[in-house]
């Protein structure tokens, strides 16, 4: 095992799939010589050539639709959308076409494609470059939605996403790219639809996704000092969603905090909360289900405001304490 950055593990995953299957190719804006806005695809055009690492015009809708068409015709495209917010430009092709085609066609077509995009605030990019709304896509039938939080997960899940025969939205996080973690040397693929218990604990369950997993783990360390034993669960894929792992944890701890990176209002945390209280875990709850997420505002530019717009470690610590009160 070696320590690697999230961005390196992700790039390795892409590279291994490009090597393994010649049907796999990447397309997106500035992913060639520039290496992508965040550097994810650095070096790949040199290795695989411009035919497989394709720089596109600034045409999000078309490139997503082109991926749909290429996928139906037998390829396995991986699209990079430069910022998650720009997915709104490609929505029709993603949710009305890519996601629905198979069902509409009576199960007679496959659309194996991945759309990757970095979400999240914390870089001062302001309201049009900072939102994290993977939960929105999880509402549309036919899509799968993945949001890995560690180098290990991102590598195993990007490989799974590329091998999956369905359209997969792959939500990365800008602040995770520089996070380090252990990555096995040998090849591995992780399943889509399996939550991961990132930390075992018995007093309270935190369900956190993407960057919030990192913050939840830090908060757990803080709380440990005060004798509070936190279990941290990372759903990893929002769709399919592994409610069982979450429910089992809540049945054990009786208390749950859900932490997300976007306005809490109508976010994916609501689905998890509703899933918990609609299940047998309801009878095990010792406190109301608590959600912690962003304020219901566009992400502000000023760094101090920006910091306050979404949960930080101290907010998680406080929320857990509130829950135990």
């Amino acid at each position: 095992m070696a320590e690697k950055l999230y961005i390196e593990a992700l790039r390795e995953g892409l590279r291994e799939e490009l090597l393994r299957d010649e049907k796999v190719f990447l397309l997106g804006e500035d992913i060639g010589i520039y290496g992508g806005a965040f550097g994810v695809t650095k070096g790949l055009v040199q290795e695989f050539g411009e035919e497989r690492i394709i720089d596109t015009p600034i045409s999000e809708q078309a490139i997503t639709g082109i991926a749909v068409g290429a996928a139906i015709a037998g390829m396995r495209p991986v699209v990079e959308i430069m910022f998650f917010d720009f997915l709104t430009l490609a929505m029709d092709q993603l949710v009305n076409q890519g996601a629905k085609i198979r069902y509409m066609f009576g199960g007679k077509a496959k659309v194996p494609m991945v759309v990757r995009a970095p979400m999240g605030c914390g870089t001062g990019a302001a309201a049009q470059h900072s939102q994290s709304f993977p939960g929105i896509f999880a509402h549309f039938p036919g899509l799968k939605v993945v949001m890995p939080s560690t180098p290990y997960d991102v590598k195993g899940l990007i490989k799974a996403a590329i091998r999956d025969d369905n359209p997969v939205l792959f939500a990365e996080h800008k602040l995770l790219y520089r996070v380090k973690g252990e990555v096995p040397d040998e090849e591995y693929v992780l399943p889509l639809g399996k939550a991961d218990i990132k930390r075992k604990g018995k007093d309270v369950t935190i369900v956190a996704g993407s960057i919030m997993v990192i913050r939840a783990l830090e908060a757990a360390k803080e709380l440990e000092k005060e004798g509070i034993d936190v279990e941290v669960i990372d759903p990893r894929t929002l769709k399919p969603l592994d409610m069982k792992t979450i429910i089992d944890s809540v049945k054990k701890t009786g208390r749950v905090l859900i932490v997300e990176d976007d306005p809490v209002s109508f976010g994916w945390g609501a689905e998890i909360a509703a899933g918990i209280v609609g299940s047998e875990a309801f009878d095990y709850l010792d406190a109301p289900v608590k959600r912690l997420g962003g304020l219901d505002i566009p992400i502000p530019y000023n760094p101090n405001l920006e910091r306050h717009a979404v949960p930080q470690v101290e907010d998680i610590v406080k929320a857990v304490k509130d829950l135990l009160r």
Partner: protein
Amino acid sequence: MELTAEKKLWMYKKMYEIRCFELEVDKLFKANMIWGTCHLSVGEEATAVGAIAALEEGDMITSTHRGHGHCIAKGGKLPQMFAELLGKETGYCRGRGGSMHIADIETGNLGANGIVGGGIPIATGAALASKMKKDGKVTLCFFGDGANNQGVFHESLNIASLWKLPVVYVCENNQYGMSVAFKKSTAAENVADRAAAYNMPGEIVDGNDVEAVYFAVKKAVDRARKGEGPTLVEAKTYRWLGHSKSDANLYRTKEEIEEWKKKCPIKRYRAKLIKEGVATEEELDKIEKEVERKIQEAIEYAKNSPEPSVEDIADGVYA
């Protein structure tokens, strides 16, 4: 580039098949046997048939909400088509898609589309796949005059031209996008005039002349197959019936409709075939009878087919 008698008769037969199909659908619709909505292509048969006649067997198409004709011309099976419209399990989409989503991947029909312009990037992507796989296929992309004002039209044609993709864009300009006249929707004289903006050839053709459509599209298909890039072909035609199930035709005059009916692509071609000695009246009558019989058989098949079962309702969402 000469058309064989066989091909000519095939084109006649397909046009007639589409006409009959659409008129039967209209009847079934009025008899409340078809659910939802239907966009019929009566009057536009030459465009679908002429364009698809220019393809080879393995080639692909993307179609539109007004897609029955494309499907039939591409080799779609009438029983499965009627079955789909009747929402039956034996239909092309197992009753899940209906008129706006008929697809037949086997014959290379990548599907109708409920989103105006939605098929344009999909066709472009299929062509990219062909280029990458070097499979020698061409994709033909149908869309309407209304669709030419969708952003994705612009984005897709630009990319197809840049990458010299083997795709042919065929605009069926039937003068209206629902109720809005072409002049009120498009700030250009012709859709084909927009080809220059993408540095690709733009061709205008009489969409009611099946051979003219064939030759224009054939040229484009050949060019695409040789790796020389896409072409935009605009076929001027006209829709005889309402936009969809209900349409009071408030936006156009009876005279205009009558004027266009005189240019019936099927009648015209019939006269031409007889004049050229390709077929006699009797031979053409025989083809028509045969088509009519097959249509009735197909309807019977569809009527007698089973409904999809509710237990299987979630089949086919994921692969």
